[in-house]
Structure formats: C-alpha cells, structure tokens
C-alpha cells in the first residue's frame, strides 16, 4: 500500500437549501483520505452525512466549499472530468433491488458502463463485449455468468442482485469502489458472502474500498480504518482496532455499547434523536446528548464550558488515532 492517498476530500462542506429557505448542512467540514488498496469504513447513523460524503467522493455531489482530489489533482466538475472519474471511482448503491432497471437484463445492466465509456474497443486483451460482461460477472462471484445474461432483476435473489451491481461497477475497471450499505438489505447469512467478495476484490484486483455503514460489526469484519461521523463531521478516526477497541469519543463509546455483541461495555442508550442538520448545536455538536457532559465527567475535567461554546477543529485525514472531543483532548494532556 503506497502512502499517497488515491482519493481525498479536504475541508468539504455540503449545504442543501430546502424549499422553505432553511439551510441543512449535511457535511460541515470533513477531511478524509483513502490510499490505494485500503478499506475505509464511514460509520454513522442517519443524518451523520456519511452518504453525502460518499457521493461527494464519487464526484456526483459538488461540495459547497472544499476540494476533492483524485491522485492529487482537484476535481474540476466539468462534464468530462466527472465522467473520467467514473472510470476510476465507482459507487454501488444501497437499494440493490431498486438500483437495477427492471426492464434491462443482467447483461444489459452490466454492459451499460462498457458502452457508455466505449471500453470494448480499448480492451487490451481484445475481448468482445459478451466476454467482458462475463468476466465482470465472474469476478463478482456469479458463475457460470452466461446463465444469467438474459435474466431480469425480479428473477434474482437479493444476493445475486447485489453481485450484479458490483459486476456493473467492476466492468469499468475502477481503482476504488464506494459501497453504500452493501449488505443492510440482504439476509444475514448472505452478508458474509458479499463482504468476503469485497475483501477478495481488494486482494485480487488491488481495489480500494470505502464502505458506508451503520454496522460496526461490518467494519470489524473488513475495514482497515474507520471514520466515525456525527452530524456532518468526523468525530473519531483511526485504524479499526484503535477506534473499536479503545474508543475515545463519547459518541463512539455509546454506539459500541449498544451493539449487542459486545458485553464489556454497559449500554449507554442516548436519549433523543439525532438533531436536525438545519440546527447544528453550537460548541461541540454532540454536547446536548453527550453522556460525559450530562453525568459531570466533563465538568470534572474542566471542559464543560468548552463543550458548550467552543467549536472543534476539523480532524486531519491521515495519521494516528484522532478524536474531536474536548474531554478526550484534555485527558491526553
């Protein structure tokens, strides 16, 4: 794994203006970087901005401010630049069932990318379109691929649909795959297979992967690094072992404590819902729900005021285990 990031976002902010005129800040300053062949998990709940970040990385969402860089070059958002990025960075959507055109066969769905980018003529092996489609389907674990050429999406199982989507993305020979909740709509027993497929693609094709998920177990299964997101910011990031085994941010700690598979932590069930992205709390955005503030731990460390009033800086994308929390920073020094 080389050290220079393949895809990175720097200081990215994305704002949406609703019909009523209010501004929802989906991303409020995010630095993130993915190296070639690395698997990064973006973990968070709804409203955290993880899907918006994924779409920004792929070039489909233009940030209000900040820059997205591929191989060091900033993205220019011209039609041609975005189309060229498609070949390098592909995204697999969450709803496998809805993401396939019901009137297109499996063959056509996978061949679409090939045709859009005229890849059949440029193939180094001189392969024909059916051969390229078959190769992509095989790589996604659908064998023998020819049997599925004429099938329609409604004739496939959930796992097969997901694999077809992955094959469609692989057909473009990307160097990075962004998978938005790749297994959340699938049965539990299929989960392992699809995750194993993603890992296998990293091993065999050197593909980098960004996985967007709310499931920390998934991150434990396949991710090298994790970025935990809350209300449009990364609140903690580092290697998977660091973040999941020694979480430092109260949000990460609470999130891990309610996962049923972990017995060591007493469950900290946060009250209330994730606040509105149109009204982000001042100071630390997590402070209204922070158990450390509520039970006095923050006051003890003398940072309670800071939690309520002082905003935290954007976490740097690379480096060791970092956390955006006044309490954690105070405890370190």
């Amino acid at each position: 794994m080389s050290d220079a990031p393949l895809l990175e976002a720097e200081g990215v902010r994305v704002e949406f203006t609703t019909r009523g005129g209010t501004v929802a800040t989906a991303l409020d300053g995010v630095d993130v970087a993915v190296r070639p062949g690395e698997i990064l998990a973006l973990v968070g709940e709804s409203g955290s901005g993880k899907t918006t970040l994924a779409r920004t990385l792929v070039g489909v969402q233009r940030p209000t401010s900040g820059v997205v860089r591929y191989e060091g070059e900033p993205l220019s958002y011209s039609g041609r630049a975005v189309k060229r990025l498609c070949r390098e960075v592909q995204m697999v959507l969450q709803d496998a069932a809805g993401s396939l055109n019901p009137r297109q066969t499996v063959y056509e769905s996978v061949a679409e990318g090939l045709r859009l980018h005229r890849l059949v003529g440029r193939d180094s092996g001189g392969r024909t379109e059916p051969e390229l489609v078959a190769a992509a389907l095989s790589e996604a674990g659908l064998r023998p691929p020819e049997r599925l050429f004429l099938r329609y999406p409604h004739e496939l199982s959930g796992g097969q649909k997901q694999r077809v989507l992955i094959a469609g993305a692989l057909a473009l020979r990307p160097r990075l795959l962004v998978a938005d909740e790749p297994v959340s709509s699938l049965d539990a027993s299929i989960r392992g297979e699809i995750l194993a497929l993603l890992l296998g693609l990293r091993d065999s094709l050197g593909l980098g992967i960004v996985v967007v998920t709310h499931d920390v177990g998934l991150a434990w299964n396949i991710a090298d690094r994790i970025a935990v997101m809350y209300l449009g910011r990364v609140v903690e990031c580092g290697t998977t072992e660091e973040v999941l085994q020694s979480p430092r941010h109260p949000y990460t700690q609470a999130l891990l404590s309610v996962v049923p598979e972990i017995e060591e932590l007493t469950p900290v069930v946060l009250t209330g819902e994730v606040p509105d992205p149109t009204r982000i709390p001042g100071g630390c955005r997590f402070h209204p729900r922070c158990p450390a503030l509520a039970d006095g731990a923050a006051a003890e460390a003398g940072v309670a005021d800071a939690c309520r009033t002082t905003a935290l800086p954007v976490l740097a994308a690379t480096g060791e285990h970092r956390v955006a929390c006044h309490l954690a920073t105070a405890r370190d020094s």
Partner: protein
Amino acid sequence: MDHLLELRGLSVAYRTTDGLLPAVRGVDLVVDAGEVVGIAGESGCGKSTLASTVLRLQPKDAVVEGEILVGGHDVQTMEWGDLRALRWAEAAIVFQGALHSLNPVRRIETQIAEPIRVHEPGISDAAAAERVAELLEQVGLPPGRSRAYPHQLSGGQRQRVMIAMALACRPRLIVADEPTTALDVMVQAQVLDLMAGLVKDLGVGLMIISHDLSVLSDVCDRVAVMYAGRVVELGSAEQVFRSPAHPYAEALSSAFPRVGDPAARYAPAGLAGDPPDPLDLPPGCAFAPRCARATDACTEAEPPLLEVGGRRAACIRVGER
C-alpha cells in the same frame, strides 16, 4: 393454567398457481405472560406468516392446520364476534414498516384512539384523549406530539406510535414483526429498551420477530430460530446466540461478529447458497444442501427437535462436536 399463546403443530400453506406452497411446516411454540420470546429467521422462513395467524390475518385462501391458542381458545375456529373482541383487546400486532402502516393523512392521536373507539364505542372524547395521552407517555413520546402527522415524526418516533397503538386496548399478548428494522442502532436500542420495560411493567407476553439474531439475544428470554418453515433451534436467548447447536443458527449467529474478536477480523462468516424454494424442498433436512456437516443420513428424513444441553435443535448430528 393456559399459556398466553400456544401454537400446536401449526402449518400454513398458500395456494398458488404452481401448487400448494408450505410457508410454515409444523411449529410448536409457547409464550407466557411476562415473557419475551424471539423468532429469528430470514426472508422466506415463515416467520411473518406465523405472526399473521395469531390474529387470523392470513389470506383467505391459505390452508391452516394445527391449533393457535390464545388464552386457551383456538383463533382459527373462533366465531367472528369472539375474534373481533380478541383482536387488539387480547392480542395486538406491531407491524413492520411503520411509515407504511400509519395513515399519512390522519393525526397520530386519531390513529391511536381508533382501536379504543372500536372496542368501546360509547367512550367520550375526553376519556379517549386521556387514554391517548397516557399511552404516549408510556412509550416515551411527548404529549405535545399527539397532533402531528406521521411524516412529521422520525422513524423511531413512528415506531413508538405503533407500539402505543398496540397497547391501546390493554392486550395481554403483543406480537412485534421486525420492530427495529430500518432503524438506527441507537434508536433500535431505545425501542428495545422500551419494549422490555413495558413487558416488566405491564406483565404482557411479547413475541418479537426479527432477522437480526443479535437484537433478539439482547431482549428476549427464549429464542426460536426458523428455517424453511420449521423451528430448527429453540432455547434461551443466551444459549442460542452464544453457543448455537444447529448449524444454521450457528451461521446466523456468526454473521454478526463480536467486535474485538480477532478471529472475525478480515474473515466475514457467510453461508453459501440460497434458502430452498418452498415448492421444491430438498429431501430430508431442508438445510442439508448448505450444511458443512451434512451426511447421507441427513437427506433421509426431516430431523425432529432433539434435546441437547438445555435447548432443542433439529439436527441429527447435534451433540457431537
């Protein structure tokens, strides 16, 4: 003493153009007051069909065999009047997909009050409103939200409204079908906490259906794992989740790894193949084609539930490790 809910040899089959499709094949299950029983399984295993039969909500052309006893009375053979009285006042269902189960053009206070008015037609507006406020408090929703429409609430709040509706007529048995699917992890924890609390406070019996075994292990006392229409493992939640005996239950349990377990790092555990087509079940054990431990004997006959270490599993190789 009658059990709150008892299923005896329940089988449900749907009539389709391709023949009789067996959705549930011989299930025995018991739920008592103050107990939380979980049913785990994936799509097509028959768990939703099971839930629908408790209130006789299965489609008219479904063929039902066996008995479904709620408080000792068979729901399938009840008179219509008794069934109406039973529905909601003795047993209630919390449906999955709360967004689609709530009427989008009516306020939630009207919707929660609806079952109350159906069962107590003469009730005054004031009394109904009071009961609605009481229910909202029980489920942890601020009473000011009662005049909201469903789309104005978050997913977790809508699910709480569904639970409040289920409690409206003070049932003794509640069936929750996938109550936490599509909810965030934290909201899921809140809803499960709420349900566990209600069981303790009100002494109701709760049956939770979910495809997420880890969710069930947290809140249930006992868990039944279903596969292809049959119960393949039945035991305490702890046992079934931590040390499952049936190979399928084991696969289901290991699908959600323990964070911190080095064995699960870069090693997602999966199960190859797909669940069997109910119209074309394999001979003998329905799980045999996907089972790593299958032998020839497995294809001979459908294994019954065998006792092993305090729980029951439908596997002839149970006990040998």
